[in-house]
């Protein structure tokens, strides 16, 4: 589903964020991307979301080579991808409903379909009944869950999350992780970047550890 093949990413300022990263995430897999801050976790996710392109090497998502995707095809590519951001990236001039509905509106879903799927997504994150609220009136944890609802409302094949529990207390963090595990159970491929090792305790999933832009360990095995 996601395949990195000897991927390098060097930023214009000369900093090499990723050096020779190779891994393969199968369909329906859930993996944690760990490592200290500055290790390249965000860069790796940005390559998947096509916010950046690799300097060298190939990134294949859904058998599509992201380096060869023309600019005009990026929107369609992103529509099949769910992204959860650490800072939620909610639109504060719109209601919770409109935020979650955004990817569906973009995809051109009918109004009835939008209603149904927004409700389903909000139900999954436990926020049904808050549709008309403004995001700003919600707690940080609730805002994060709205962001997750938006990421899954379009039923993406792949969901990537950058420090989704970064601003949450341990209880809320565990709740969010349980949510991700549930999505994984219904077949969604997930790649979750986090530095919260405690949180992953008791979760049997694969771990990719990045150190200085290189894959140090993969699933406990040496890379």
């Amino acid at each position: 589903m996601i395949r990195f093949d000897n991927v390098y990413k060097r930023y214009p300022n000369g900093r090499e964020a990723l050096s020779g990263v190779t891994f393969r995430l199968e369909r329906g897999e859930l993996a944690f991307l760990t490592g200290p801050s500055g290790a390249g976790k965000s860069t790796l996710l940005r390559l998947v979301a096509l916010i950046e392109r690799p300097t060298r090497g190939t990134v294949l998502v859904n058998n599509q080579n992201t380096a060869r995707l023309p600019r005009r095809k990026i929107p369609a590519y992103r529509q099949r991808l769910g992204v959860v951001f650490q800072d939620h990236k909610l639109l504060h001039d719109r209601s919770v409903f409109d935020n979650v509905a955004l990817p569906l509106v973009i995809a051109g879903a009918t109004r009835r379909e939008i209603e149904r799927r927004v409700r389903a997504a909000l139900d999954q994150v436990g926020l049904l009944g808050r549709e008309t609220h403004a995001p700003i009136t919600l707690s940080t944890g609730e805002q994060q869950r709205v962001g997750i609802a938006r990421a899954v409302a379009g039923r993406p094949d792949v969901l990537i999350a950058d420090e989704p529990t970064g601003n949450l207390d341990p209880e809320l963090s565990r709740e969010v992780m349980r949510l991700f595990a549930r999505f994984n159970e219904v077949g969604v491929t997930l790649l979750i970047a986090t530095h919260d090792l405690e949180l992953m305790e008791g979760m049997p999933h694969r771990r990719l550890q990045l150190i200085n832009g290189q894959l140090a360990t993969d699933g406990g095995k040496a890379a």
Partner: protein
Amino acid sequence: MSTWTGAPMRYLDLHRQSLSGSVRRLAGQPLATVMTLLVIAIALALPAGLRVLVSNLGAVSASWQNAADFTAYLKIDVTADRARALSREIEARDDVAEARLVDRASALADFRERSGLGEALAGLDGNPLPDALVIRPASGLDADVEAVAAAVRALPEVDVVRVDTAWVARLRAILALAGRVVNVATVLLGAAVAMVVGNTIRLEINQRRVEIEVIKLVGGSDGFVRRPFLYLGLCYGLGGAVVAAVVIAATLALLAAPVRTLAGLYGGDFALSGLSLSELLSLLAGGGLLGWVGAGLATARHLRAIEPT
């Protein structure tokens, strides 16, 4: 709903949402919206108003088109009987519609009354004014008028013929020039409208940078991101045109009474005419189009530059 009606309906629905979103956005910041609309309205009202003015002047000059009348002054020693006979003879010509005799006595009386020189004129011994014939040729064409004037000038009783159509020709030339000036002003101010809208949209884009990034991140295409801004431009242009139409109507209403008085002083019953329906529709269409184009230019330049980071 079958699939073939589904897609266009969804498409229309998207556009409807963009449009209502734009209107809501304008209503959300009323002061800024009103200021921008006024600027656009003034820029549109100027050329449209000038156009109305020129077409009104054109209407006035058209009503003078039969003013091909000319005056033949008879020699001072022509008798009143001969003058009357002469006016009948000239009127009998095929190329003359009417010949009216203004005899020297009534000419003097008229002059005394209108000039306000009654006292001074009373000191004159005798009447210095000759009999005159006001002749209206059958045709208003300059060449025909000239032909009649030449024939009349050749009569032995006629002293001087004054053909005074030059000023009508001059007025028409001035109007043609004014029309050209209005066209140039229309182009310049139209460009100004597009630029004002473009600049407003550019500010709006900067203000909504975060929103644009998020929309692009969740898969919004350039077209999707662009659409609300195009509708915003359309709303500005159309709204400005509506205000411009109101401004023109209000101005004409203010001018109507003085114009009627002025026309009355010149013995006419001229009334100002406002924007015709087709002019009004062109104003609205032009305003909307300029707003759309201005927004299109601004979005083409600035939206591409905003990419998620």
